[in-house]
């Protein structure tokens, strides 16, 4: 997918000005946050479960090579073919090769963020193979001129009922419907035909189980089941970090994933798929392929950002992020928005292509608090800022300003002089008012708010005066 993260600020301004989007974000925020909080109540020991989940994920990523080899061997034993892709281009090449080998003309897809990373739909189309997104949200975006998703769990969360009504009327050529159930039914009927006629189903994978060589898939709509049951070929595309040890570990993680993502105690469909259709079976794919994708992940192993590999893509961090809640997902400019995206985009799509993202956070740590696998997201964002500075990627003015500030702050007399001049200057700017409308040193501040006037003298001046009066010695 094209990276538009360098335009974060302009994108964000556009999002703030989009009245429809603002309404949808407000609506979504309330629902995600409230439902998660409710769903955690019947999990008696959230902290304990989270600790267990952290341990499970760490166990794998700390020995990722061994677990990958183990998963590969088990998957091959079940009759699956395991392939490896270094980057998005290789993902596209492998999937097209598989499709061509089996004479595939149409691929039904359940949601896969890695497919978005790789730009797979465009590649399939170019190869004359029709990709059909079947998650309702992804389908809405696909038929709207391949618009990118704005949320990893609810891809079309930025669209309103009216948007979808107009879109389906135009694309399907049917009378315009205004009820959500009727629109859902219309999509169901269109997609049912695709499910039955596609020769190949393509899914992501929520987890890969090393014990059994299985892929675990979580969906609510049933489209994940459709694409892995009806076509004769099933291709799984997942990141190499998705391995977990056992089925018991899967159960532990499943107590957290749906609760964190959508506020459900369990998703409607949770499928653990192992191997291919047996001779007497009525349904199921005859061919199963795993494409294990690197796309930047291997280079994160063992670095300061290693903990990010624990991520299970629930989206709780973005649902709870004050910045995401304010501007939505598109502003982040790549596949993953919110705090998750502000870490993943620099790591996978290039630090130089996403200068703003690590800074587009207040470091409030709401994301870290809700993360079901305990990723210290604010620490990782801060670390990325440090890497940017080290690599000279920040604007020169900012770097000089910071260095100067730190230099002065190490020299108390100079600092005291600067502070008392600053206090007087700001007081002068405010004049008789108790506020400053436009702050020349930081015009960004003044875009949406005033700056309160200072008292006019610094604490240290007044404190020294008081000590002189009372005769205290410092």
């Amino acid at each position, binding site marked *: 997918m094209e990276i538009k993260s360098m335009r974060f600020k302009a994108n*964000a*301004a556009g999002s*703030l000005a989009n009245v429809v989007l603002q309404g949808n974000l407000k609506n979504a925020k309330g629902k995600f946050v409230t439902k998660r909080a409710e769903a955690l109540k019947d999990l008696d020991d959230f902290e304990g479960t989270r600790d267990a989940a952290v341990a499970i994920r760490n166990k794998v990523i700390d020995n990722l090579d061994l677990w990958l080899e183990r998963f590969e061997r088990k998957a091959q034993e079940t009759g699956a073919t395991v392939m490896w892709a270094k980057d998005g281009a290789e993902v596209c090449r492998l999937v097209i090769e598989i499709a061509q080998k089996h004479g595939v003309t149409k691929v039904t897809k359940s949601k896969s963020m890695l497919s978005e990373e790789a730009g797979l739909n465009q590649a399939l189309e170019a190869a004359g193979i029709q990709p059909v997104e079947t998650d309702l949200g992804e389908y809405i975006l696909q038929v709207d001129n391949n618009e990118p998703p704005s949320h990893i769990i609810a891809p079309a969360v930025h669209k309103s009922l009216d948007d979808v009504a107009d879109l389906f009327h135009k694309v399907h050529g049917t009378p315009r419907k205004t009820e959500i159930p009727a629109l859902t039914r219309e999509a169901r009927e269109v997609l049912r035909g695709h499910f039955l006629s596609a020769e190949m189903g393509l899914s992501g994978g929520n987890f890969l189980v090393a014990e059994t060589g299985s892929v675990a898939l979580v969906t609510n709509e049933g489209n994940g089941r459709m694409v892995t049951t009806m076509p004769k070929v099933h291709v799984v595309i997942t990141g190499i970090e998705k391995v977990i040890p056992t089925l018991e570990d899967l159960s532990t993680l499943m107590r957290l994933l749906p609760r964190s993502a959508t506020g459900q105690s369990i998703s409607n469909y949770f499928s653990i798929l192992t191997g291919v259709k047996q001779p007497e079976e009525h349904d199921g794919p005859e061919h199963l392929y795993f494409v294990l994708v690197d796309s930047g992940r291997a280079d994160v192993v063992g670095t300061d950002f290693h903990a990010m590999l624990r991520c299970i893509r629930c989206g709780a961090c973005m649902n709870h992020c*004050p*910045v995401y809640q*304010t*501007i939505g997902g598109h502003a982040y400019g790549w596949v993953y928005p919110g705090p998750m995206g502000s870490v993943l985009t620099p790591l996978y799509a290039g630090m130089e292509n996403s200068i*703003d993202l690590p*800074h587009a*956070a*207040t*470091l*409030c*740590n*709401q994301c*870290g608090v809700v993360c079901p696998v305990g990723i210290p997201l604010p620490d990782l964002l*801060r670390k990325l*800022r*440090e*890497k*940017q*500075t*080290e690599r000279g990627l*920040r604007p020169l003015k*900012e*770097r000089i300003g*910071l*260095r100067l*500030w*730190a*230099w*002065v*702050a*190490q020299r*108390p007399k100079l*600092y*005291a002089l600067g*502070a008392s001049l*600053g206090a007087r200057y*700001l007081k002068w700017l405010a004049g008789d008012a108790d*506020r400053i409308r436009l702050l020349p040193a930081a015009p*960004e*501040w*003044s*875009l*949406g*708010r*005033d*700056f*309160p006037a*200072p*008292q006019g003298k*610094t*604490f*240290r*001046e*007044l*404190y*020294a005066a008081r000590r002189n009066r009372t005769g205290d010695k*410092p």
Partner: protein
Amino acid sequence: MARVRVGLFVTCLVDLMRPRIGFAALKLLETAGCEVIAPETQTCCGQPAWNSGDAPGAVALAKKTIAEFEGFDYVVSPSGSCGDHIRTEYPTLLAAEPEWRDRATAMASRTYELTDFLVTVLKVDSVPGDHEGSITYHDSCTGLRSMGIKQQPRALLAKMKGVDLKEMNGCEECCGFGGTFSVKFGEVSAAIAERKCANVLASGAKAVVGGDLGCLLNIEGKLRRMGDESTQVLHVAEVLAGRV
């Protein structure tokens, strides 16, 4: 028992903008029986440098602050943000230098946010302030989520007869300040602040109170830009201490 010697870390924002908060903290600690010194060479804890990716600057300022404050029985600050930076981040950012890391760790366990110190260590049973009226409390992010500052200010405010606490919706949600975030992404920051201010106004309280000046400047600036002239914006130390 010898008087407890407290080093008051005023914070650079209080020094520049609101000295009266520093004096309020001083009064609260002295009233509770502490000997309080605000070392005159103190500047900034280094958090802005650390959060902006300037690790060398942050390390230098951490060492400076440790040298100034490690001789006190306790280090107290009227800020959960700066307090947490000293308590939690110093040992991390000095991890590569064992001697300094150990000094940071030794000081960390004696470093407190003001209300936490009054409640947890000093166990005060009264406060000198005489504020009257309804207030609503904004929980600043770092104090809340890293230092566990939630009940402490409320417990102290509950000791004041004239204070009527009206909790707002989303009191734990970020106000959008975020330090340098507020001047890098002004529009987004102000839009987040607008949600916070709407909750403040909806609470019906006459004053919004918090424990971190950065958030308070943000909230006050946004309230005034929104046309609200009446809601007072106060640091919890000012409310608790009364006239200084």
